[in-house]
């Protein structure tokens, strides 16, 4: 085999040569296919496969959505497994998803569905961290989540916060990178007519001249304290970021959903999730690198039909979790595509694990990390494909197991971040962006 360093290089770029190719190249080398040719091959691959994603929208389905009711139905499994919903065909031959995802079925050509996600962690907190960082939680170190890593490495000073979460984050995101890489939480409910980002407007009587003066006074005080402690002042403090945000009219416009035509707003649905997706689109349109949308309630230990489809008992038109997701998600994908933004925006929809294959006695499903699904689109991800599969009853991966670590490796690669790049803890310790994950090449085009 080639030397291990080369091996590493292969994985740095999405479109580089896969391991299978390398085996082939390796054997060719023995037959006289020289290293020079090999490098040429790799250079070609690199020029084609520049990561295209400039931004990322993470739709976090908190609680662990059931794979068996969304993207991985098992119509032929025994009754106690297959659950209440039927699969439907999509606009891609051979791909079926849940009947509750009828709008998503029309954009399947843009989606890559990974049906063989697998993890050993079935507790919300731990699984959350694993999926969002690619690292299994450790008592020694809190690892940072995607958004924090991206904003840490993407040094793009802009008026808008580089990492926005709608409406609030449930977990600490920045880990060892520190609180300056926490996302900016909008608060509120974007579906409400009076939605406003909290505290974005000046307090009455405090104009920009006074804000500027406060900034100068504060700098004086903080430099005194820093010299007492013999520390350096932080280069871009939370205050400086807040200052930039509130003194710009651009930021106010970015968060103003009333600026959108009524037709666009209704396309995303009237629910909080849909309007959050719309806000996410407005933000990436204006160059925000990372937006996460929190969608809670997926921890469905009971009453799948009520929670996933109906939303409330006796509903004529389902407004439960899946139809709500369907509306917002499909609108986001097609809207991004129509605006020419999909190619440079990576969209990820996933939760921390799947649900047990067997329905429990309360008509729900419990935690099941051994196999579940994740959906990716845009950002150079080839659509219209299913990657991996689960077994007959959705219990274990049948082929192509993808760990959260592998997925993280791939997401970073898609975002143009070298997974091997090192980050540093406060005490100067190097920690790679991703450790040991394997590239899911099919996601990379």
């Amino acid at each position: 085999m080639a030397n291990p360093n080369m091996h590493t290089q292969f994985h740095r770029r999405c479109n580089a040569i896969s391991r299978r190719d390398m085996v082939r190249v390796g054997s060719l080398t023995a037959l006289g296919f020289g290293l020079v040719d090999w490098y040429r091959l790799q250079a070609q691959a690199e020029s084609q496969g520049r990561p295209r994603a400039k931004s990322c929208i993470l739709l976090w389905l908190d609680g662990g959505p059931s794979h068996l009711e969304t993207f991985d139905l098992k119509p032929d499994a025994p009754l106690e497994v297959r659950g209440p919903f039927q699969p439907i065909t999509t606009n891609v031959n051979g791909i079926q998803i849940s009947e509750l995802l009828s709008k998503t079925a029309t954009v399947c050509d843009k989606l890559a569905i990974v049906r063989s996600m697998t993890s050993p962690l079935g507790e919300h907190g731990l699984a959350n961290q694993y999926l969002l960082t690619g690292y299994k939680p450790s008592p020694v170190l809190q690892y940072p989540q995607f958004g924090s890593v991206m904003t840490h490495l993407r040094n793009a000073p802009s008026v808008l916060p580089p990492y926005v979460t709608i409406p609030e984050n449930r977990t600490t995101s920045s880990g060892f990178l520190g609180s300056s890489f926490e996302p900016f939480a909008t608060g509120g409910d974007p579906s409400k007519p009076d939605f406003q980002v909290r505290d974005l407007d000046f307090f009455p009587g405090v104009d920009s001249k006074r804000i500027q003066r406060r900034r100068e006074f504060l700098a004086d005080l903080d430099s005194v304290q820093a010299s007492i402690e013999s520390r350096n002042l932080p280069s871009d403090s939370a205050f400086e970021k807040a200052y930039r945000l509130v003194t710009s009219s651009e930021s106010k416009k970015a968060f103003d959903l009333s600026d959108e035509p009524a037709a666009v707003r209704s396309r995303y649905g009237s629910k909080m999730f849909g309007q959050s997706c719309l806000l996410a689109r407005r933000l990436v349109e204006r160059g925000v690198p990372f937006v996460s949308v929190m969608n809670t309630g997926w921890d469905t230990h009971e009453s799948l039909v009520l929670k996933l489809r109906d939303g409330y008992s006796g509903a004529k038109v389902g407004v439960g979790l899946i139809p709500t997701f369907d509306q917002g998600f499909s609108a986001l994908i097609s809207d991004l595509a129509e605006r020419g933004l999909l190619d440079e925006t990576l969209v990820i929809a996933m939760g921390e694990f799947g649900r047990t294959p067997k329905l429990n006695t309360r008509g729900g499903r419990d935690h099941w990390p051994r196999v579940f699904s994740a959906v990716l689109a845009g950002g150079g991800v080839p659509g219209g494909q299913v990657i991996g599969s689960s077994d007959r009853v959705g219990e274990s991966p049948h082929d192509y197991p993808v760990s959260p670590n592998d997925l993280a490796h791939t997401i970073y690669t898609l975002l143009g971040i070298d997974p091997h790049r090192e980050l540093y803890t406060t005490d100067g310790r190097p920690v790679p962006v991703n450790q040991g994950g394997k590239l899911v090449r099919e996601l990379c085009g």
Partner: protein
Amino acid sequence: MMKLLILTGLLASHVEMALAVNFDTEIIPVFTTAGCNAGACHGAAAGRGGFHLSLLGANASNDYEAVVHELEGRRINQTHPEHSLLLAKPTGILDHGGDVALDDDSPGAKRLVEWIRSGAPRGEQRKLTHFEITPERYLGTEVPVDVRLQVTARFDDGEPEDVTGWTVFTAADPIAVDIDSQRMARITRRGQQVVIARFLNRVVPIQLNIPFSENPIDLSGEPRANFIDDEVLKILSELRIPISPPATDSDWLRRVTLDLTGRLPDPASIETFMADQDRDRRPRYVESIMSNEAFNDYWTLRFSKLLRMHSQPNDKDGFNAYSEWLREEIRKGAGLDQLAIQLLTAEGDSHIVGPANFGRMINDAREHAELAGHFFMGMRLGCANCHNHPLDRWTQDDYHGFAAVFARLERGRIVSLTSRGAVTNLRTNEPAVPRIPGERDLSGNADFRHDVAHWLTSNENRYFARATVNRLWYAMFGRGLVEPTDDLRETNPPTHPELLERLADDFVDHGYDFRHTLKQMALSNAYGRSGQLIDENRSDDRFYSHAYRRLLPPEVLVDAIADVTGIADRFDGQVTGIRAVAIVDPLAPAPSLDILGRCTKAKECDENSNTAGGLSSQLHLLNGELINRKLTDKEGRLHQMIHDSKSDEQIIRQFYLLAFSRMPITEELHHWSNRLSDSDASERRSKLEDFVWSLLNSRAFLENH
């Protein structure tokens, strides 16, 4: 095919060695070292690929059954051991979901072959009587350095054996310590490194320390207030980390008042303290503030978070009884052992009997056991619901047995023990036998909560004392000796093991009086160091060579802003003038506290909240009502001083004292006098408002340092 031939050839040379291999003590370690019985593989609750082993070999009888008898005995082929599924799968001869887990010429594979060849016996039951790791503590000088790890075990039937190869070593920080297949640990980073060794049911943390500097330092002459300093200095000198000078009196005063009472010291007590020249003034000050109502309020809030106290919908009475009871226990200085017993055993009308609400904060017996484990033992028992805890000693029997202790509890308004109620042990699918975790089953039909309460507060175990002193340490130093503070277990050792034990002893010896322990900490020199960094201790964040900066908790910050500005907050549904620390119910509406990141029911409250100090709270401080409304209030301190014709200097001094607990030095006074003076009254007013605003947004104010 090739592989089979090699394996057969290899077997031939070992035929003579067919010794009786013991399943429980020699085969199970093969599974553990190869990872077969890990939680992600066959050790999962449901097994994997139809083959289930107990997690990390906790249940040898089941494992023997699974290996030898299940699947009509096809896992074992005594005629051709190499054809046994048990070998053919992990060596990769047959397709294996877990890839190649054992090389066919590895000692593990050889041992399996020998064992099968000798008839796959279970073997005699034998007990591990002696277990030794060398080194268990290592102190080096240089990096990188290789340290050979060696493990000796002795069973009750024979001679000491080298079991190094059958022990699993896991580095807590794999980037700093790499352990190769020969059990050589390569340390590449300076500091305190931890490796966990696991053999059968023994789990031992190994400490590998490399000093931060090549030059020894001498801390022997440093003053020591009590045993805390002995232990802290011991590790600092071992790791060669020099210490920062002591904090100034005013810094110490601000720090200790914030830590013990959640408030800034008021100007009068600053003046009294600074004027006091007695050498006992620090102990006297600590004692005096610990008898304040402010202390009671603040510690009621802290304990309420650990107890996950919250109101029930449409039922505030129970919550009020609970929080008033807690506050009263704290006020009268009851030992925490007495508090624990009441929490565990109380019954009756929860609107009257405060501690009876403990079991009403959660929904069922399992959650009751988890909350009890969390609060009383600082442990996360949850993993053991579905499988034995992978990182700790807790088994499913422990978990469900512990839950069974609380199974008969009726959790309505009237809390009582009924005659019915059971918890199903998910391992056996039978009703769980009530059990003191890790200890013994409880038989009979008594109220076992009393047994558990007695056990937790007796000398039999140290969980409660350790968990408590660790949390007190966190409250005073900004970091636990064990982090996170709710995850005490053998595989997550403390930074200062001896210190934790001595603190726990001292706490128990003083009647579980947490004021005593807080006082010990507050008076130690370790606590009294300044936050001023020197080059050689700049990166230290866990050995207490200097004081660590901590953001004020949201409730404390909100109160401090109110105190400095002289305008109290208004909270919906609360009496006028209530302080934020007195709002014990996390569900009581308080938007400012939420934005600043207060602990709510949804969050793990032991953890340090990292969301504080982010952009959202910064925007709130900048544009929100929290500060701005108070600054412009005509009744507020600033406008009153302006109204009373106070000079710029008087205003500057007053607000420095309130916000920073010190007077401005001459340069500061000049600086601000120049910047603030203005002949236009309205311009002067707005400058002064901006000055006070900047004090309240400065790091020196927002942090305890």
